[in-house]
């Protein structure tokens, strides 16, 4: 009986894995098709589309632009997120629950609403659409994720560590920087990479807050509107591989560091 359920369950799991991977595998495969026309079956194969991506200056500049936005917004999110986590993990105060709720708000707002509310808000502050506006919106959107990841780690920091630092004469700030921050390292790597990936792959915010220069997802979207082509497959595959590699690296190093402590 249980063996049967177990078997059915594992079939369902692997079917789900197949469902999740299949479209991506097909997409990667289609990038090797030696024809401008998207569709199966693939009769002849080529590497030209992939080689084209590396030489395409439009793609490369969009790629660099996305990375720049990702790194900058991640840095801001980490700074703010750590600060908020320290406050929320400290002693209780009046309105703490409210602050916690507000902290998580951006993660719950549907994408389109988040994007247009920021479009309006940027207008209020006189920020015109462009790099600054995208970075700003991505940074705000990512803060809740940093807070969740960092708080989880911070709550496991033994209080005695900080007390010891204080006994040895460190003031709260120094104690935080030299004791708590190193302890948070796995969370910072995990949270940072998570933010980077969200920002790098974000479409809707970059689309509504962007200026003339497209980020990589916006560029793919623009190309898609004018028709499917194996070129898009190649670009998307590059994004897929980079995202996967970075994510796996972060996961591994996070686990290793977590184990070490």
């Amino acid at each position, binding site marked *: 009986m249980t063996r049967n359920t177990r078997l059915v369950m594992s079939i369902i799991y692997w079917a789900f894995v197949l469902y999740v991977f299949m479209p991506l595998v097909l997409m990667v495969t289609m990038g090797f098709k030696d024809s401008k026309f998207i569709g199966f079956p693939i009769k002849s194969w080529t590497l030209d589309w992939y080689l084209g991506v590396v030489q395409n200056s439009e793609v490369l500049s969009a790629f660099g632009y996305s990375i720049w936005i990702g790194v900058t917004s991640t840095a801001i999110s980490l700074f703010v997120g750590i600060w908020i986590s320290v406050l929320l993990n400290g002693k209780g105060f009046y309105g703490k629950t409210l602050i916690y709720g507000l902290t998580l708000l951006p993660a719950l707002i*549907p994408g389109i609403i988040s994007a247009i509310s920021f479009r309006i808000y940027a207008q209020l502050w006189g920020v015109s659409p462009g790099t600054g506006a995208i970075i700003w919106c991505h940074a705000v959107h990512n803060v809740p994720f940093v807070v969740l990841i960092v708080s989880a780690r911070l709550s496991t920091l033994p209080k005695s560590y900080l007390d010891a630092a204080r006994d040895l004469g460190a003031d709260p700030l120094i104690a935080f920087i030299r004791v708590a921050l190193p302890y948070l390292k796995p969370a910072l790597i995990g949270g940072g990479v998570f933010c980077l990936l969200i920002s790098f792959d974000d479409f809707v915010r970059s689309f509504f807050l962007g200026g003339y220069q497209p980020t990589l997802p916006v560029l793919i979207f623009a190309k898609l509107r004018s028709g499917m082509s194996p070129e898009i497959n190649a670009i998307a595959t590059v994004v897929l591989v980079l995202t996967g590699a970075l994510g796996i690296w972060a996961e591994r190093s996070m686990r290793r560091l977590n184990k070490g402590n």
Partner: protein
Amino acid sequence: MSGKVQSSTPALPSDQGAIPQTGGARTFWGGLVASGVYQSFSTALLSSPKRQFFILAVFPVIWVITQHLGPMLQMFYVSMVDAYPVAPSYENSFTLDNYARFFREAIFVMPFIRTLVFASVLTFCTLVLTFPVAYFLARHVKRSNQMIFLLLLLIPFWVGEIVRTYAIMILLGNNGAVNLLLKSIGLIDRPIPFMYTGFSVSVGIIYLSALYMLLPLYSALEKLPKSYTDAAADLGAGPWTRFWRVTLPLSLEGISSGATLVFLISTGYYATPVLLGGPSTTVFAETIAGFFHTAGDQWPTGAAFACLMFITALGITALFGRFMTKLQKGIRR
């Protein structure tokens, strides 16, 4: 050495400053702390617990109010004025007409209802689809392997909305993999037009949001002790009874948070319905976006529509949450 003195009052912040070094080896941090600039900074800001707390709290509070709540409030404000952004000479006035427009013009109501129906149905589909997967992960996989099995599912979900939507386009297109497969089996001779229908949009949205359901379900099921179902089995409960009377009721919390997340998030997809849908599947996100592509005079209407959708979606999730809490209480009794 002042450090020794402080150790007697560890809870109090040091007003003596922090001078850990004994004079010999000067570290970077020791030097920094001993420097005059840091000393005056420290006495100004960190000299009492009250000040420390103030310094700690003031920035996060300002941030969440201006950055997290601010855009929402501003959107709400814009939704109730007649023009935004305004020309310098023009004074905008308060109006509810933006909201009235939604009820006046029938073309807006359909996408709105469609979005809510889509989101509800897809939330349910996602739940049914991911529950066995989460259950398998939490109960049947060895604990040491769980992370790897979970990671396998996580990788595709790191890739963004656009790339995954595109992957679905290739899967479902007229010359796509599904049609090719059906044709080669001989089930069909002409491709089934999956694309640009409600079906393709649904597949896309489920594909994008399954993880938001899977993770809360997994963590709820993982916490459920195996002894509970074992006890039920000892008492003679079959697999279905065990599922309906033990597993499901105890995972309601995970279902509740997963469903809330998926529902809210799936109302906000924009690129997916644009790329996978057609004229008959216009969702409200596209309607809202339409007001922001054109000149600024449409912004207040767009803002009003966004507010309407967000408030409705929140209302539905709140009702759902209350229903789930009631259900949980009813079971416990």
